[in-house]
């Protein structure tokens, strides 16, 4: 199971004034977000932060203090692996890519999330639109 320390959530900032998302909501899903971005291609830390910012239209803002411990723990759990790109004349850069184990974990998490969000939508949806006949 993917275990993410609840303190990591403190690092997630909520972008701009557009919307407020409580920390509890994001609890546990940071690892899934990182894994799903890395499923597409290998990335380095800075690139990941930019990518999350772009994909979420600035709603999720990963902080460095969250991202690196998260990446390192995902790596030591075997969900990610890393390699150094050290071409001459260029800065050394550490790239992360998803492992087979990471892909499996991601698939599980996606399924869990789909069921969860569907169920929540169903319940909230009924309440919001007043279909809850009394």
């Amino acid at each position: 199971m993917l275990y993410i320390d609840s303190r990591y959530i403190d690092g997630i900032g909520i972008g701009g004034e557009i919307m407020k998302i409580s920390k509890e909501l994001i609890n546990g899903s940071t690892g899934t977000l990182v894994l799903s971005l890395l499923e597409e291609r290998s990335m380095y830390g800075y690139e990941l932060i930019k990518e999350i910012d772009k994909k979420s239209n600035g709603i999720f803002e990963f902080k460095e203090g969250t991202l690196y411990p998260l990446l390192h723990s995902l790596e030591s759990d075997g969900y990610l692996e890393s390699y150094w790109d050290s071409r001459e004349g260029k800065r050394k850069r550490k790239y992360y890519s998803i492992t087979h184990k990471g892909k499996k974990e991601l698939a599980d998490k996606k399924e869990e999330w789909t069921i969860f969000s569907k169920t929540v939508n169903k319940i909230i949806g009924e309440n919001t639109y007043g279909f809850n006949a009394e």
Partner: protein
Amino acid sequence: MDLMQNERIKVYMDLVCSQIKFKEIHKNIREELADHLSNLVEENMEKGLSLEEAINMGIKQMGDPYVLGQDLNKIHKPKPEWSILALTFIFTLIGILAIYILSSNELIPGMSTYGIMKSSIIMLFLGVGTVLILYFFDYRKIKPISKSIYIITSLLLVVGKIIGNIYGGFGIFKVVRGRVMIFSTDLGYIVPFLYAIALSGIFAENRWKKDKVISNLIILFLPMILIITFQRSIIPPIVMYFAMASVLILVSGGSIKYILGSMGIGVGVVIFLVVNSPYRIERLKNFINPFRDPLGSGYLDVQLRKIIASAGFLGNRININSGESNVLNLPGMHTNYIFSSIIYTFGWLAGIFIIVLSIIFFIRLFKITKEVKDNYGKLLVATFSSLFIIQFIYNILMILGLAPLTDISMPFISYGTTLNMVNMVMIGIISSVYRRKEVVGEINF
């Protein structure tokens, strides 16, 4: 932009690293964070800030260095590889127990039970001490002297033989029963291990390029030639070296062509050696048909088969004190053939138990090899693993009558000071690599 040298950034990194107890990972973390900070600074400068402002802003964006350091510290706490250490310990204890039983039944000539137990237990403590010291020692310190180790090992083979021939032993060299010893230690056992260390360092940088094919072949085959020319007891070191070199080629990224080629040469060498020696032909014939000369050269083959055949599922433990104990009254029952003593005394169940443990041991070694990131560390673990695996497998096959008899012992279980010391050193270095498996790159002196 390289900001590693910038004073403010340095201070930031120092603060992060001050929280991370595992020092060897500091360099990697610094490099990763420096790259990140450099990106932030470049981005800030594009927005129109001055370098100094951009740096200050970047450091602010990075967040609290203490919190980051503490979080990273929790992830980078080095752990020993307990399964390998536990298995090594169990193997050693099995060996001590078997030796005790053999010795108390007076089956180990020339040594008292007290004497052999004392030396076994001293070896156990020395082994634990060696592993402990090597665990904390950074294995990357050996890498710069790889070439020297290669040259010294090759010289040892040559010089040892020459001095041994002239003086029958001189200074640190001795010749005992046709074997060159250094500090009364059998070279044949140390040589494959020393070459494994040296070649891991030499092949850690990718050497499999077209212009290096010839030099690679020379580096890999020279030891074989030296062993054949200068060692009296050739088969054990050649078999061990050959297994080690094949794994080295495979793990260091040599193409299948080289592996097949070297296998061809290896098999060719062994056939050549066997055909050229009447003694070895005799051994091979005895292996194929042990009963062709049951009282002469095939005596040991026949006796070992008898022992195995008379072992029950739970062993003959009780009978050992009766007249039957003569069965085990053969040379080498506590060294090369200890596995057959164990099967006889404790039965097939014990034999299967040891085989299962050794398979678990192999699987753990494979896993460690995969987990280690640094190329040099990976090669060390891979080559050492191959040395352990070949010793276990050959010894087991030999006892079961599936391979010709030769001087290959069962690691940790067989009695033998040199061999077990070499094996313990390998376990120590594997532990050292495992402790630093996340660490990549050269050491900072």
